[in-house]
């Protein structure tokens, strides 16, 4: 059994190895650096509280589940749609993003929060449909249909993307 100091060392190591991944996912889910920071802080606090029960191979999945669930609550508080992305998309400085990133930022802003969560988990975190369903606590069918609706919405708005692009 790992003693308290060993547990702290383990958790410190986990934070060091997972913070970047959690921060990136949180940023994509919220579109705001400030909200992402709050989300990651709260996620790691809750994961620490459960650390004595969480097995090492489950830790990142556990933390991701907490993160995604907390992001749902953030939306439910009906905070304004984040403006950081669209503002950056409108700048033309030397360090501006590529056209693709600008376009994806606009795309994400048009999705419902649920669709955005699923798109981020599937296409950034590379979770399977089943893993995404488990992370969100919904059925595989709901993941499939939400993803399908999201893509239908994106195709309607960005029709030029699909010209001659069939795989």
């Amino acid at each position, binding site marked *: 059994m790992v003693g308290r100091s060993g547990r*702290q060392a383990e*958790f*410190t190591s986990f*934070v*060091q190895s997972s*913070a970047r991944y959690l*921060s*990136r*996912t949180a*940023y*994509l889910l919220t579109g705001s*650096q400030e909200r*992402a*920071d709050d989300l*990651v*802080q709260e996620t*790691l*606090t809750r994961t*620490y509280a*459960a650390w004595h*029960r969480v*097995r090492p*191979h489950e830790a990142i999945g*556990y933390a991701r*589940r*907490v993160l995604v669930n907390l992001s*749902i*609550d953030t939306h439910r508080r009906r905070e304004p749609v984040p403006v950081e992305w669209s503002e*950056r998309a409108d700048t033309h400085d030397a360090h501006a*993003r590529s056209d*693709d*990133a600008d*376009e*994806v930022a606009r*795309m*994400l802003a048009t999705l419902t929060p649920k669709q955005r969560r699923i*798109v*981020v988990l599937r*296409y*950034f975190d590379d979770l399977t449909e089943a893993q995404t*369903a*488990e992370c969100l*606590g919904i*059925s*595989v*069918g*709901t993941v*499939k*249909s939400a993803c*399908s*609706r999201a*893509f*239908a919405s994106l*195709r309607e708005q*960005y029709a030029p*993307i*699909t010209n001659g*692009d*069939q*795989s």
Partner: protein
Amino acid sequence: MNALEEKLRSGLTELADEASVNVRADDLVGTLTLLDRQHRNRRLLAGVAAATLAGVVGWAALTPHTITVSPAAPAAAPSSIGQLTSQYFRFQIQNPQTVNYIVGVDLRSDGSRLFVNTTSELEYGGDRQTGELSGPVGSYFSGKLPGNLFVVIIPDLVTDYASDLGDEGRHPTYLDGQLRTLTNEGFSMVVFRWEPSDGSAPHYFWLGSDGVVRDDSSTSMQTLALTVGDHQLRLFQRPGDSRWGTFPSDVIDVWRTVDPDRAEVRVMGFTGDMSVGRLPAGATDVKVVPRGDASWTVGRQADGRAWYMVRSNAEYTGSSSTDSLVKSISYTDADGKRVTYTPTLRH
């Protein structure tokens, strides 16, 4: 992967590169350690009172309802003894205001029995309730637990599940179930939070690793798998019941009551890129003529009745409420006559 998916992947990665990492591990752990120490000190001082409170509030675990059955797939035993896994659940209840509950489930085994310990509390503290359920390793068992929880242990790697919201008159006021397929441990768990109108246990269906759909008593349903390309749909029915369901399901309640005979039923979301329907009894040599670029297949349920499935190869197939994927269906009937019909689009 199509062009839109590729654009999403590369764009998301580039957007994520903008995120900064503002967590300092040593600072965070230092703060959490201090809070932990303060919390433990407060618990020591309030030890007697806390134990008394737990006895009053929490421990209302009912005798677990144990069912020992053998699904077609071999039961998988946990791979170790002791603490197996800890799982985190969050239930968001809207009845009528939104209330969030955090549920922790710890699973451990002594080799012959599996123990399920639950903790349920309001998200930011309060109303803490704990309970324990146990059953033989490798068996299917379930039970009610404090905090309006119902836990099911299935000795199989379940790939999907769906709730049965029940007939009119016994609709639960709130029901949410979340599946965990515990691959390392070799079994699955569904945790429900429910507020029943009549105190009954939740009803549900699950899809096992053998491809058979079963209900909450682990009774097998009549299951038919239809596959077009890499898309597979499973249709299931209870013998003698006109209702049918699909896995995966795109409806809140798993059952569909729409009559599938000589019909076209769009499934899977608003883009509804799949349609299914059932042919008359005795139909053979079935041919489907889809609208546009689509693929199709035909399968037969246990009593010989044929179902078709059509899946469009287009990326966007319009509205499921007005657009059909099927132009016509032809078959040879029981008298040897060739019949052609246009299925009725139904919802």
